[in-house]
C-alpha cells in the first residue's frame, strides 16, 4: 500500500516536472499561430506581403547575432573592469556603462551611423569606411554591451569570495582564477538575464531601419508605402518577429538546461 502511494506520488511529481520543463503552452501559441499563418498564407494579400518582407529576416538575424556577439565581448570586458579594485580600470568601466546606458538606443545608432562612422572615415582618410550596416551593428553592440556589463558584474559578485581565495591559494593569477573558476560559475547564473537581453536586442534591431538598413521592419514599411496595405504589412512584420523571438527563447532555454550544474 505504502509502495503504491509512493509510486503514485513520484509519477505525479514527474508529470509536473515534465510540464514545467516542456514548453507545452507553446502548443496553444503554435495552434493560434498555425491558424493565423494558414489564413495568411491562403490570402493573396498576405502572400504578397510576406514575399516582400521575408528578405529582411536575413539582415535582422545578421544584425542580432553580430551585435550580440560584440555586446557579449564588450560587456565581459566592462563587467570585469567594474569589479576591478584598480580605481582607473573601475572608472573606465563605470564611465562606459553610465554614459551608454544613459543614451537611448536610437540615439546611439544614429551616432554610430552619422557621427562616429564618418569621423572614423575622415580620420583614416577613407581607409576605414564602414558600411552603414556595420555601423549599425557596432552601435547596437556598444549599446547592449553596457547592459550586459552590469549583468556580468552581478554574476561575478554573486560568486562566493571563497572561490577566488581557493583559486588564488592554488597559485592561479587573478585572471586565471576569473577565467577558470569565477566566470564559468558567474555566467551560468546570469544565463536568464543574458537570454533576456538577447531577445530584447533582436527586437531593438528594428531601430536600425532609421539608418535605412533593409531589415524586417524597413522591408515592411517599404511594402506598405508601395501598396498602402498597412494592416497586412504590419501583421506580417509582427508575426515574423514573434516567430524569431519564440525560436530564440527556445534556444536560450536549451542552453540554460545544457549548462546546469548537477
Amino acid at each position, binding site marked *: 500500500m505504502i509502495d503504491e502511494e509512493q509510486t503514485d506520488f513520484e509519477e505525479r511529481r514527474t508529470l509536473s516536472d515534465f510540464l514545467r520543463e516542456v514548453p507545452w503552452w507553446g502548443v496553444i501559441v503554435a495552434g493560434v499561430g498555425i491558424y493565423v499563418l494558414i489564413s495568411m498564407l491562403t490570402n493573396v494579400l498576405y502572400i504578397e506581403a510576406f514575399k516582400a518582407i521575408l528578405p529582411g529576416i536575413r539582415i535582422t538575424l545578421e544584425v542580432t547575432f553580430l551585435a550580440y556577439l560584440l555586446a557579449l565581448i564588450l560587456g565581459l570586458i566592462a563587467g570585469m573592469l567594474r569589479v576591478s579594485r584598480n580605481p582607473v580600470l573601475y572608472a573606465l568601466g563605470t564611465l562606459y556603462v553610465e554614459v551608454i546606458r544613459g543614451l537611448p538606443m536610437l540615439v546611439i545608432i544614429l551616432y554610430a551611423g552619422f557621427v562616429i562612422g564618418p569621423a572614423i572615415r575622415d580620420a583614416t582618410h577613407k581607409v576605414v569606411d564602414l558600411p552603414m550596416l556595420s555601423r549599425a551593428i557596432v552601435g547596437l553592440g556598444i549599446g547592449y554591451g553596457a547592459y550586459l556589463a552590469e549583468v556580468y558584474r552581478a554574476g561575478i559578485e554573486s560568486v562566493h569570495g571563497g572561490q577566488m581565495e581557493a583559486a*588564488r591559494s592554488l597559485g592561479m593569477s587573478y585572471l586565471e582564477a576569473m577565467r577558470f*573558476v569565477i566566470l564559468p560559475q558567474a555566467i551560468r547564473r546570469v544565463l536568464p538575464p543574458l537570454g533576456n537581453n538577447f531577445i530584447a536586442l533582436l527586437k531593438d534591431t528594428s531601430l536600425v531601419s532609421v539608418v535605412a538598413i533593409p531589415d524586417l521592419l524597413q522591408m515592411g514599411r517599404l511594402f506598405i508605402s508601395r501598396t498602402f496595405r498597412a494592416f497586412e504589412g504590419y501583421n506580417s512584420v509582427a508575426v515574423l518577429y514573434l516567430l524569431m523571438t519564440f525560436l530564440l527563447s527556445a534556444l536560450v532555454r536549451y542552453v540554460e538546461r545544457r549548462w546546469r550544474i548537477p
Partner: protein
Amino acid sequence: MSEPIIQIRNLRKYFGHVHAVNGVSLDVMFGEVLMVIGPSGSGKSTLLRCINELEKPTTGTIIVDGMDTTAKGFDVNQLRAEVGMVFQSFNLFPHLTVLQNILLAQRVVRKRDEKEAESISRDLLEKVGIPEKADVYPSQLSGGQQQRVAIARALAMQPKIMLFDEPTSALDPEMIKEVLDVMLDLAREGMTMVVVSHEMGFARAAARRVVFMDNGVIVEEAAPDVLFTNPSHERTKLFLSKILH
C-alpha cells in the same frame, strides 16, 4: 629539521582600527606540525592567511622557504604554489567534477600534461580514501568527503607547507574523524603543517607545539600535553575551561 621553513617576525595586520594580529613572531620547523588555538577573533585565522598572502601584512616580515614574502615586487603566485591551503568551508569549485577540481591548478599553474595530472589526481583520491568519487560533482558529496577532496586538491600542487584553517569546524561530528585521519597520515609523512583548530585529539597525536593566541598576540606556546593539562597563563586556562567543558 634545524632550519625554520616559516619565519614570522613582528607581524601586524590591521583592518582599520581592528588590530587582528598585533605583533607575532613565530618559527615553524621543516616537517613540524604546529597547532594554533584561541578564541574567535583572536587573530589565528588572519595569521594563517598572512602566511600565503591571502591577507597582506600591515608590517613585519614573513620568510617562507627562503622567500621574503613581504619584499616589494614579490611574486605571490610562486609562494602560493608551494603553500597549500584548506578552508573551513572547503571552497571546492562547484562547476567542476571532483577530478577536475584536482586537475585544474595542476594544468593551469604547474603546466602538467593531462595524463600526468590525471594520474596524480587519481593517486591522491586513493590516498584520501574516495577514489570512486572522481566523476561526481562536489554538491553530491558529504562535508567530510568534500574536505578530503579539498585536501587532495591542495596536495596535487606538491606543496612544501600545508595550512589548515579550521578544517573540521563546518563538519558534522561523525565526519570529523575521516578528515583528521587524512591529516594524521600527512603529518606522519613529514608534511610541514600549520593547523588552526581546536581538535585536541589531533593535537596530541600529531603536533609538537601548540600556540595559544588571544587579542592578536601569542599568549603562550607549549607541547600539547603541557598546554592542555597545565597551562601557565590565566587566559589560556579560562579558554581551555570553556572548550573542554
